[in-house]
């Protein structure tokens, strides 16, 4: 802050005095200890009308070119996959749909399960609360704490996320609770007036993201990881499906595989085996508490291990062996589960489900898979004919 009111200080003030700048003006810094006057706010002399019109036209042309570029790349306008969108679906449980079926998992349950197929079979559309790159446990705990929820929940288990507790969107339940009126309005405006019309409006095509993924030289000793690229397209009620480019474009498919492969290599940042084991037990403990709270008020909980293949499956089996993770989870929670390897209808090797990057299936196969999964769930777990033993005891499902 100004330490002096002396004239010598004032003489050095900003150097504006005496300049041929007719827009020069004093600030409060130049007027100590007095009531500050109404500020001067001159407008530079320019043909502002023409400038504004020209700027808007030029910006529109630039944005039109940008949009064209991404459409040519294969992008279609889609709803942005935001926490605000998640919050809209979450609020449905508190607004008269507390008895709904909730889908809660990571990207596999999110992209592979097709809500229209489920709706056709059940007569009711489930609520999709999965989030990519995120363990479902935080959201499961959120449901466990919500007495208005009395429905059924299908919990997707992607071993590397579920048993590590990793979550890109672990903050979603908190966001939904704290969402301000301004954020709600912004979400509504965006998904009605922006997102359905502009393909470039996707985080993967944001200017800074595009620049960052250019082939910059690597710093010695600084291995730079490629970020996960766009994988899915999302609808207004969070019905998502794998982006067709992943399956159709060999180059893009190879890129997505290369990105996954980064995770398959050991890294100095990896936890030690003891740390990993401890984390797995913690996550199972979280699941046990949440499931117990949900079942105490009659909510049916069903775990599902969604399909993966190839190098991804090998990585998961290596890092998160079934016996130590999936089986332990079912045993500890007492909740039933469906492992895709136990059901021929769900196995990619038997049904020919196409998972271009080993982790998610194409839209068409997702529809087939959803029908198959729904059939198993109705037959063995949630339908009127499901035996109580099958519905509650994991051993029965495993022995199928």
């Amino acid at each position, binding site marked *: 802050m100004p330490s002096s009111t002396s004239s010598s200080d004032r003489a050095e003030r900003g150097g504006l005095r005496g300049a041929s700048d007719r827009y020069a003006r004093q600030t409060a810094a*130049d007027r100590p200890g007095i009531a500050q006057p109404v500020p001067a706010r001159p*407008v530079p002399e320019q043909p502002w009308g023409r400038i504004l019109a020209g*700027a808007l036209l030029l910006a529109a042309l630039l944005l039109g070119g940008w949009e064209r570029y991404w459409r040519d790349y294969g992008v279609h306008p889609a709803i942005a996959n935001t926490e605000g969108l998640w919050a809209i679906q979450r609020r449905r449980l508190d607004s008269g749909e507390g008895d709904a079926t909730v889908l809660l998992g990571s990207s596999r349950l999110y992209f592979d399960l097709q809500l229209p197929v489920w709706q056709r079979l059940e007569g009711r559309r489930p609520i999709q609360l999965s989030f990519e790159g995120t363990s479902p446990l935080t959201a499961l705990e959120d449901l466990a704490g919500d007495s208005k929820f009395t429905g059924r929940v299908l919990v997707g288990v992607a071993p590397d996320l579920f048993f590590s507790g990793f979550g890109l969107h672990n903050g979603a339940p908190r966001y939904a609770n704290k969402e301000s009126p301004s954020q709600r309005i912004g979400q509504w405006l965006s998904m009605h007036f922006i997102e359905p019309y502009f393909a470039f409006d996707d*985080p993967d095509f*944001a200017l800074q993201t595009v620049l960052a993924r250019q082939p910059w030289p690597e710093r010695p*000793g600084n291995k730079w990881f490629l970020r996960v690229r766009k994988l899915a397209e999302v609808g207004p009620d969070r019905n998502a499906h794998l982006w067709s480019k992943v399956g159709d474009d060999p180059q893009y498919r190879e890129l997505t595989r290369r990105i996954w492969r980064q995770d398959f290599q050991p890294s100095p940042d990896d936890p030690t085996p003891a740390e990993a084991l401890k984390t797995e037990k913690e996550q199972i403990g979280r699941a046990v508490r949440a499931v117990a709270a949900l079942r105490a008020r009659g909510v049916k909980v069903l775990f599902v291990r969604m399909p993966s293949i190839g190098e991804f499956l090998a990585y998961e089996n290596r890092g998160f062996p079934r016996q130590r993770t999936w089986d332990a989870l079912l045993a500890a929670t007492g909740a039933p589960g469906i492992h895709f390897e136990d059901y021929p209808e769900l196995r990619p090797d038997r049904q020919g489900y196409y998972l271009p990057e080993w982790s998610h299936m194409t839209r068409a196969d997702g529809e087939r898979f959803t029908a198959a999964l729904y059939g198993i769930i109705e037959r063995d777990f949630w339908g009127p004919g499901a035996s109580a033993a099958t519905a509650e005891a994991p051993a029965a499902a495993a022995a199928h």
Partner: protein
Amino acid sequence: MVFNSLTFIAFFGCVLLLHSLPFGWTTKKVNLLIASYLFYSAWNPPFVILLWVSTVVDWYAAQGLVKARRQAARHAWMLLSVIANIGMLGFFKYGQFLLENFTALMSALGIAYSPAHYDIVLPVGISFYTFATMSYVLDVYLRRALPAQNLLDYALFVTFFPHLVAGPIMRPTELVPQFAAPRRATAQQLRFGLALMTIGLFNKIVLADSFLANVAERIYDGDRTPGALDAWAGTLAFSGQIFCDFAGYSTTAIGVALCLGFAMPDNFRFPYAAVGFSDFWRRWHITLSSWLRDYLYIPLGGNRHGPRRTYAALMTTMLLGGLWHGANWTFVAWGGLHGVYLAAERGLRARFANYRPGPVVFVALGLLTYTLVNLTWVFFRAKTFAKAWLVLRGMLGLNGAAKPILPTFSLAVVAVIVGGIVLTHWLMRARTLESVIARAPAAVVCGVWALLLFAIVTVQGAGSAFIYFQF
């Protein structure tokens, strides 16, 4: 709501439309007042009550001041206002901090004390509007200004949405007179106001949020030890981020007000070209530094009672100024460092009163100032002293075994953007934005404006809050 949101665009469109309709002036002011309350309540509706409390208390305190005949009564009315405002600020902003420090003190004395859980949400912008309302009562108390003629004008001064949550901190004498007669932006003001909003939002959304924030986060919020290059890059990135974030907000706010026909004061004047720290504080957050000068430093004695008292007033002002920014000792350290810088500069100026630097030394002193300012940003950005020391050690090259953290792209971003900011500040050091725009060919202004709009849209800002909202 934040300026960088679709909600604000819709809101502002409605406000502009209402303000241009042929209503009477009082109706237009009521519209602006209601709009301002909506603007604030869009974060958290109940906190509007705090605004009302602040408004009513200071309105009646100023009325009481004017009517009081005895000095003691004037004192009492002034103190009522100060205690109410500082009390509110203290409760919401510093309650948890005070409790934690009290608990730590008790623990150090061997007394086990565990307070009840205390979870208070900080109302957005409370530091800004409490300072604005306090300046109203203090100006009346100091006989610098007359009270507002009516409650509507005063309430609108407190609440006027462009400055409400993050300044510029306005004085009543700057804004209340503008409510006396009908005001509506001319076509030129409206268009230039939109241009200022574009510049401000470009600073915030593109430079601060999309390019620089991530670099600072990787160094300050990560758990890896930074080497010299990374520590400096992270700190320089933050120096650019905080300038673009806060100056971006101020510029947007000035543009918003101008679109409605109102003038708001400059809050920044190319601060990274400052030579010396008194110069820096004449250029950085001008409305806060002048507020602290007028209502704290000068009442504490200023420079009128000898060097010792001057230095004490300076340090007190800067320490409290640091605390104003946040309830954490790291902010106090930030303010303290600036206090030390100012005191040292004052001492040096007295010692070398006749020294006039040549152009090379002048620039060198400017770069030294910027470097030392960056050291203070470490304490401002780090959440703990441990992190601050870790980054400082890195900047001094003492984290020998540190591995590289930032990729080449991030280093390039810092070099280009922060280098560009510093260079621009030096080129603009003795100029105003308006003079540069006035001299530029219209086609260039048009092209630059279009590019800024293009960048704002294509970085797809997530509507993140401005850093200074938390203060």
